[in-house]
């Protein structure tokens, strides 16, 4: 099944999703659908609400209304830990490396939610830096190393839908390149990926579709093949 993903299978559907932090209304009715095996990006300016969308899916924001279906199941009333158990892997913007844990403990921390995740060796092969520093305290890593670790640890869990928030941030170009290859490989394996990315040139060649977020709404949906046609629209939205 993983070799030949069912492209029509709807893995994630957001309809009329609103989200609030206390008094401030951040998401104003997001609608989007992601099918199994797709890689979709959320583009937008700083503060547009992309990270908030991912957090809302994980039930990590204050208040939400609307609907979130994962694998056809309504999850608005699910606690975050239930959502993870549905096979969702989340890599947060702020990395979330645990300082009381060693690098290796950080890596093996998230429980395996499905079979088919990467093994520790595979991960260390991919990120030799982490192997070298595996016994140091998690937060003693350099900024970029922490970013690698944050990404690496959800690859272990076997989650089949990844929500990745700015994973190339602060990484050296070589590593970014490598990450690109990883994402391609994951896609091949049939994983569904929602990618929030600042670095459009990293995301462009990987994605099947792009959603542009502005002021908490999806203002544009662009599929990979119409990318060049809509370049100018995109540039306008992104303020390039």
């Amino acid at each position: 099944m993983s070799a030949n993903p069912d492209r029509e299978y709807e893995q994630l559907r957001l309809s009329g999703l609103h989200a609030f932090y206390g008094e401030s209304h951040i998401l104003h009715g997001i609608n989007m659908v992601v099918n199994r095996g797709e890689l979709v990006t959320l583009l937008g300016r700083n503060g547009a609400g992309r990270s908030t969308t991912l957090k809302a899916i994980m039930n990590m924001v204050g208040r939400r209304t609307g609907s979130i279906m994962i694998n056809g199941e309504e999850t608005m009333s699910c606690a975050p830990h239930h959502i993870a158990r549905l096979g969702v892997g989340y890599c947060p913007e702020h990395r979330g490396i645990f300082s009381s844990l060693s690098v290796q403990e950080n890596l093996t921390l998230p429980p395996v939610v499905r079979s088919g995740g990467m093994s520790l060796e595979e991960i260390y092969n991919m990120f030799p830096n982490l192997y070298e520093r595996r016994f140091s305290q998690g937060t003693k890593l350099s900024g970029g190393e922490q970013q690698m670790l944050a990404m690496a640890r959800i690859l272990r869990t076997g989650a089949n839908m990844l929500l990745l928030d700015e994973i190339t941030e602060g990484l050296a170009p070589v590593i970014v390149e490598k990450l690109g290859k990883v994402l391609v490989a994951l896609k091949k394996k049939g994983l569904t990926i929602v990618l929030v990315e600042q670095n459009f040139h990293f995301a462009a060649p990987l994605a099947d579709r792009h959603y542009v977020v502005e002021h908490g709404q999806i203002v544009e949906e662009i599929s990979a093949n119409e990318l060049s046609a809509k370049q100018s629209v995109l540039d306008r939205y992104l303020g390039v």
Partner: protein
Amino acid sequence: MSMIFGVPVAVLSGQLLIGIINGAFYALLSLGLAVIFGLLKIINFAHGAMYMLGAMTTVLMFDYLGVNYWAALLLAPLLVGAFGVVIEYFLLRRIAGQDHIYSLLLTFGIALIITGVLVNWFGVSGLRYTMPDTFKGGVNLGFMFLPYYRAWVIVAALVVCFATWFIIEKTKLGAYLRAGTEDSQLMQGFGINVPLLISLTYGFGVALAAFAGVLAAPIYSVTPVMGSATLITVFAVVVIGGMGSIGGAIITGILMGVIEGLTKTFYPPASSAVIFLVMVLVLMFRPSGLFGKEA
């Protein structure tokens, strides 16, 4: 008889042993405190009250239900632990993520309430509890008479301490706990039921205090106010060990028991102050305590 600083060696060895016994007690109490602080970042000023509750439940269960010591050893921590879970669920949870000071005040308030209510119900003179027959008597070690019960205290306290340390530092569950306290939301995002984990941890921490309370019931006067005097000392132990360091709390507990014991021999009036002196000195040279991680 050979002497050290005017104190016979035999007496000194006795004092050392007593120090270790008391230290084991401190270790147990400060361990619970360190677990709660280390994992939940809560400064648990209700710890003394929980210790007291452990002892009180032991006595009351015996008086009213005829529950014996061995059963109490299990039941009292369970009951107090459950009570702790309730407190965590209804009160402490609401201030998660706030400054330390709030948890300190909240738990201090809780301690005042618990203690005050029990004082009104049971007075302050203390409740009667007789030592279980198994432990009556003792063994003469040559340099001192060691009551069986004290020997048991050492064994029981150290076993529990070690088990706790092992669980937290060496097991997966412990890793979840440690991580959950840093970023509980993210841990939940990984599929772990963190709120439950936190409630249970607090329950476990206070259960450790209650366990110490059960151990104390036969040898100390059991009163609603018995915890308040111990609290500050135990706190000092945790700070010297390094807030949140599990191993540190255990080792420092024993160390402080010994130091206090020696002070009781050489300059008794200072025995309640000596721990604070040690604390000032230690923090002077090691800002995060003996075993604390650098801030």
